[in-house]
């Protein structure tokens, strides 16, 4: 079943086209990684898919619902972990979880909070104000918050940016655990992250989606030795292969 259906999605800012005629279907339970160089249009795409900004042209259907007509129904079944940590700095970790549970009006919020605290091992920092935590912890909390409403669609915008190796591996485990259960769209600059986690990969450059396939197929098509080489080959059109 198709979870996300994107047709001719375009976003223009005056003279600049940030996303240009993107067509893509993402299956239910799929973990789809969106890769690209800086300014490729990944974050703009995620912002349109999550209903934060309006497209200039094109359509988005989430679980069969039209983004322009059913925005608020769609918003209740998705969640986003933005690129920067998006948490209330003067609130404790528990208060942040509680606040976001209120935003999504979670009925059994204590059970859900306990589950997330356990899943992300937040016990030691639960009553600490978020602004006193390290960047790594803040990012962990930010991602835990994005699961508060048991989203059917989850957007992770560079989730492991700034995390140490151990924290990154721990987070990979969490993301792996989500595979098959919810549809995850992940943007990252780490090739090994996309390679190890995703079912399929989409590569963007200058606002265009220039390749979509599995890691193995992308390597095969470009005759590259590694996925990183395949990525460089695709983005540079073979100039840096």
């Amino acid at each position, binding site marked *: 079943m198709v979870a996300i259906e994107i047709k001719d999605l375009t976003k223009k*800012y005056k003279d600049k086209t940030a996303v240009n005629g993107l067509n893509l279907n993402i299956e239910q339970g799929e973990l789809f990684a969106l890769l690209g160089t800086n300014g490729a249009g990944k*974050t*703009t795409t995620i*912002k349109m898919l*999550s*209903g*934060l*900004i*309006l497209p200039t042209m094109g359509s988005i259907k989430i679980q069969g619902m039209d983004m322009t007509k059913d925005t*608020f129904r769609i*918003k*209740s079944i*998705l*969640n*986003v*972990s*933005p*690129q*920067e*940590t*998006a*948490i*209330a*700095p*003067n*609130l404790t970790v528990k*208060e942040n979880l509680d*606040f*976001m549970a*209120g*935003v*999504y*009006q979670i009925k059994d919020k204590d059970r859900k909070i306990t589950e997330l605290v356990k899943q992300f091992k937040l016990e030691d920092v639960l009553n600490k*104000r978020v602004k006193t935590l390290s960047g790594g912890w803040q990012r962990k909390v930010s991602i835990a*918050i*994005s699961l508060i409403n048991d989203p059917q669609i989850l*957007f992770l915008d560079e989730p492991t940016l700034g995390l140490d190796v151990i924290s990154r591996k721990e987070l990979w485990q969490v993301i792996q655990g989500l595979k098959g259960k919810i549809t995850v769209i992940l943007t990252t600059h780490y090739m090994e992250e996309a390679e190890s986690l995703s079912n399929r990969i989409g590569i963007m450059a200058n606002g265009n989606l220039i390749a979509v396939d599995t890691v193995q197929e992308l390597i095969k098509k470009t005759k590259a030795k590694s996925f990183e080489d395949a990525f460089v080959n695709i983005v540079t059109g073979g100039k840096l292969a």
Partner: protein
Amino acid sequence: MRMFNFAKRNFKELIRDPLSLIFEIALPIFLLFIFQQIKIPGDTYKLENFTPGIIVFGFSFITLFTATLVAKDRSSSLLIRLGTSPMRAYDFILGYIFSLLPIVLLQDVLFFVVACLLGLKITFNIILTILISLVISVLFIALGILIGSLVSEKGAGGVGSVVVQLVCFTSGMYFSKDLIGKGFAVVCDVLPFEGSLNLIKGSLNHNYALISVNDIVVFTLYTVAVLIAAIFVFQKKMLNANK
């Protein structure tokens, strides 16, 4: 209700910022106390006139710290996250307004406690004045939301400070507009701060002759216009979060 949930969060953010409490509550109380010790001649500094001035002065800091909170939320990506949630524009606007009202109430109560300790007569008018000032504070909160939606966190501090200065000079809390000249008096008439002060002063003194039609019209027009502008600009900024 999402707006109350958001208000609860905003309230916690605000009261955990010691600087905001110092400027919103401690500084006006200090001024109220100190100006009563100096014994300046004239009616302006009598407790029944100066306490309303202190209330409006306190509100100007409500504008400043609301603007800072909104601008900070915008820059911290928290609003990006909330923008993808089922919260609607009115949840945000009312959430900000409701979070500030308990602080306004706290300001009023503490200002009147100090004023009464300094000699202000305890009357039923104080309760009425507190209720009226809660309504008036909506203008100052909405102004803060508007400023916070338009400028950065640093800019919010700067523009908020301009509002503080405008309140000091044009509300009539320190001196009558007629002392400066006709041009200045016109500026005071078209800005909503003198009207806000007169509404509070009139109700505290049970002297409604102090409130002119111009005060009511200007205050009402500003409140409606600023509120509509705040909702419009805030929503527009939320839908263009990466601009």
